[in-house]
């Protein structure tokens, strides 16, 4: 999966300035397709007080009903400016994000000037296209000024990780269209209806001609979710399950040889099913859909993973689970809510949180940080990798690490603690960055910082810290000493 890339917006410097004669553009291109230009600023995780570097990008989108433009979340993530352009109209229309869903990589944009929609025609979302059927992909691959159309065949329908968040899996449709970066957010059309939004693929050295689109059930769910003016995220049972087709396991659990049921192997604390299910329960059916022993359910004649039933639901709704517990049947209704932990999700549109004290920079160890920095401390790597698996979230809300050392006489001996996770400060347990800020703000003669697994505490003298403060801030150009709120 490492080679999978998003058809991310291209840097402006890569744009090819060719102008091609574009005669008689099809109606979809001239009346529905939208070119999206952005200026974005990604937070700087290695110098978090900086605003981050500015980049320009290009992506695609299309007009949907309600004077809106649908595109991928990753096209407009961290955007500072967004402009929409129409084919054969030189004007750039500034736009804003109305709704953005990073968990399913979709966003709805609104131009500030509604005249953008004059002469435009909204597209309608259709159904999942049939295998082997032909679809047309519209977009601005390699960033060109003019629209491109490619044709592909629907190759496969499956459940797959969405790499924008890196932590969510939903239904995807694989097509063999030769699509490229810049296609992102563009409509995939069949018989005049949108059957997908092009969004990710593999790089050429892994697989050729393989593209993925977000299929109609995911698009429709997103549009339905935001209908009340607010995006509520996907809901989740917050469980892991294990297939039950081993005959001995089936008999030992008192199950008949009917190919039904999976074992609930892990419950995540704070998740929807936490207090309602037990590890070791056997899940036989969800909302009346039989769960096969490999975890699949049949919906509308096709086999999909059992999570697909929950996928289609919204916050506030429930799922009815038929279980076997200790050999006895049991039905449980689970009120659904989102998965409570975001440690492994890429996050966007938030400034990085940090704290500078005595030249030591403290940051939460999350996916965004890991994406930019290789963690050298093996304890911290363990805490991160096993945060959910080993229920480490029961001890701390997040892993606060010493991320950077702004070298100064006050912290000369701190190097051995680089990337180590803070356990306690002056005997106060540190569950999150705010705890660390509070402990370091409390008056004391010595600040005794205990790191997980370190051979000694790091001790800073309050006097030395305050004497070093201005010196460090000016020498390293630290414009802000902390950002505790996302």
């Amino acid at each position, binding site marked *: 999966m490492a080679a999978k890339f998003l058809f991310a917006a291209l840097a402006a410097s890569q744009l090819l300035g060719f102008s091609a004669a574009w005669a008689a553009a099809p109606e979809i291109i001239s009346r529905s397709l939208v070119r999206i230009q952005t200026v974005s600023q990604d937070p700087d995780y290695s110098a978090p007080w900086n605003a981050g570097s500015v980049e320009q990008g290009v992506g695609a989108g299309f007009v949907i009903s309600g004077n809106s433009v649908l595109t991928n979340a990753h096209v407009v993530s961290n955007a500072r400016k967004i402009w929409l352009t129409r084919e054969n109209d030189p004007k750039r229309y500034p736009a804003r994000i109305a709704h953005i869903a990073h968990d399913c990589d979709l966003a709805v944009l609104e131009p500030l000037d509604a005249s953008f929609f004059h002469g435009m025609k909204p597209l309608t979302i259709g159904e999942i296209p049939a295998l082997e059927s032909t679809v047309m992909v519209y977009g601005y691959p390699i960033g060109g000024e003019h629209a491109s159309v490619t044709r592909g065949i629907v190759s496969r329908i499956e459940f797959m990780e969405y790499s924008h968040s890196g932590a969510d899996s939903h239904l995807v449709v694989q097509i063999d269209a030769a699509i490229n970066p810049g296609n992102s957010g563009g409509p995939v059309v069949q018989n005049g209806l949108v059957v997908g939004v092009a969004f990710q693929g593999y790089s050429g050295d892994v697989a050729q001609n393989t593209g993925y689109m977000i299929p109609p059930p995911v698009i429709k769910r997103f549009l339905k979710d935001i209908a009340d003016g607010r995006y509520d995220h996907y809901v989740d049972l917050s469980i*892991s399950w294990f297939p039950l*087709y081993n005959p001995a396991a089936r008999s030992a659990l008192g199950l008949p040889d009917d190919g039904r049921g999976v074992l609930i192997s892990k419950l995540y604390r704070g998740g929807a099913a936490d207090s309602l299910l037990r590890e070791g329960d056997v899940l036989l059916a969800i909302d009346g859909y039989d769960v096969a022993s490999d975890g699949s359910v049949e919906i509308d004649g096709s086999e999909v993973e059992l999570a697909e039933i929950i996928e289609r639901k919204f916050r506030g709704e429930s799922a009815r689970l038929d279980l076997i517990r200790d050999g006895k049947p049991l039905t449980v209704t689970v009120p659904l809510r989102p998965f409570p932990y975001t440690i492994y999700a890429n996050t966007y549109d938030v400034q990085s949180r940090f704290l500078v004290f005595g030249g030591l920079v403290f940051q939460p160890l999350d996916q965004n940080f890991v994406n930019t920095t290789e963690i050298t401390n093996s304890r911290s790597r363990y805490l991160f990798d096993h945060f959910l698996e080993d229920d480490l979230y029961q001890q701390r809300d997040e892993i606060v690490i010493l991320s950077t050392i702004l070298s100064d006489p006050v912290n000369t001996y701190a190097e051995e603690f680089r990337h180590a996770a803070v356990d306690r400060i002056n005997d106060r347990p540190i569950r999150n960055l705010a705890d660390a800020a509070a402990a370091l703000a409390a008056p004391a003669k010595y600040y005794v910082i205990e790191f997980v697994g370190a051979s000694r505490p790091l*001790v800073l003298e309050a006097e*030395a810290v305050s004497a070093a403060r201005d010196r460090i801030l000016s020498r390293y150009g630290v414009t802000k000493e902390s950002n505790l709120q996302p």
Partner: protein
Amino acid sequence: MSLRPPLLPALLALLALALPLAAQDAPPLPGAASLIRVNATNQNYNFAKPWTKRPPYTRRGIGTVIEGGRVLVTAELVANHTYVELERPGQPDKTPATVLRVDADANLALLVPADPAFLADTVPVPFATDVRVGRQVAVAQLETNGTPAYTPGIVTTTTVSPYPSDGIALLSYRISAPLQYRDNSFTLPVFAGPALAGLLMRYDARSQTAELVAAPVIANFLARVAREPYRGFPRAGLTFAPTRDPQFRRYLALDEQGGVYVASVSKGSPAEKSGLKPGDVILKVDGHPLDVDGNYVDADYGKIPFSHLVSSATPGGSLPLDVRRDGKPLQLTLPLEPRDPATIISETAILDRAPRYYILGGLVFTELSRSYLKEWGGNWRSEAPARLVYLDEFQDELPADQGKVVFLSEVLPADTTLGYDDVGSNRVTRINGVPIRRLEDIALAVKKPQAGFHRIELESDPKILFLDARKSEESAEELKRSYGLPALDNLSANPLP
């Protein structure tokens, strides 16, 4: 053509270095009668497939004859040996040898010939006690005709450094010597005049530097061999942090010049028996003040780590410790004991013992060791299963009654393991309700199936597996046949030779 002035002194200096070996008054180096060719055929175990051995390979090295009709070599030369053969330089006869004693931590092994007469008219060598930095030494190699070929070298460093087994740090000498590659290994003795200065254990051809097992370590090893039963080198069993940081020193209210901060104390270790606790500051060991990095001034070798005081002490004694706890002085006594193998959860190097395993209905169980993790190659710390690496690295924090870490290492696809193929390495906690602390516990647990099933509880997802007890037993022969398993378990302890 004339030499430019700066080169001339350099040449003279080189000549001066070479001179002492040739000089008339230099003590003679040992002759062929003190050297033995050692041909060792070794075969390593495959800890990932614990029922198999890797292909054999042969190494040649040079052993040294010492008193008592014994031949001294490094432990590395004969690790996992299947056949060891001795050869007198320039003589046609060869004889098989047995490994009398091996200590992987000290990287030393003693060999004895099957035929005691084989060593008749050999000349045992003494051990050098006066090797210091700057001392001239000579590395022994053998010409094909059996004539000793000595390469001069000079001792550049005497220090206490980790030995190849990852076990403990012991005294070692670093020498500078331009060695030729002969006899397919650098397992060679090094002499200071007629006396053995050490055994070469690592050679870096680029920098032409070599590291030696120092003669005092060899003498210490032989003193331990003389006392049955053999017990290895003592170690304190603690980790410490330097107290260099002045803010840390002021916080600890340390007014002395040095001292180290005790970070952890291993369970059952001499440090624990002495009463040391994390947070103590050790100021003196055996009356020697420690500096902020834990070095003391040794009469022979200068500033070296205090672990040398522990490892070089005569067996059975103890060392006084001057400690500071909560600002108050404290006197403790550190018993000098080797690590009790029974307290080791994950062993650093398993040599000359077949890996232990237990196969139940296609599920392969084994015990965690560094040898197992190293099957992932040089990058095992990042390549091997993360949890196992973590358990190995931080084993001192596991509960005292942990025993070994028993885990499911592999699933051999079989009718009994249908649907379990994707269950990766996963620690076993209980089988049929019996807590699993060593492989023998599995053998006991499988005698108590529950309602005809084996109930296998794991630490991580999926947390539980079931096997049909009768079918597991019935499938045993089929499993052995299809996967070429010589046996379904190895529970032998295979004591060290």
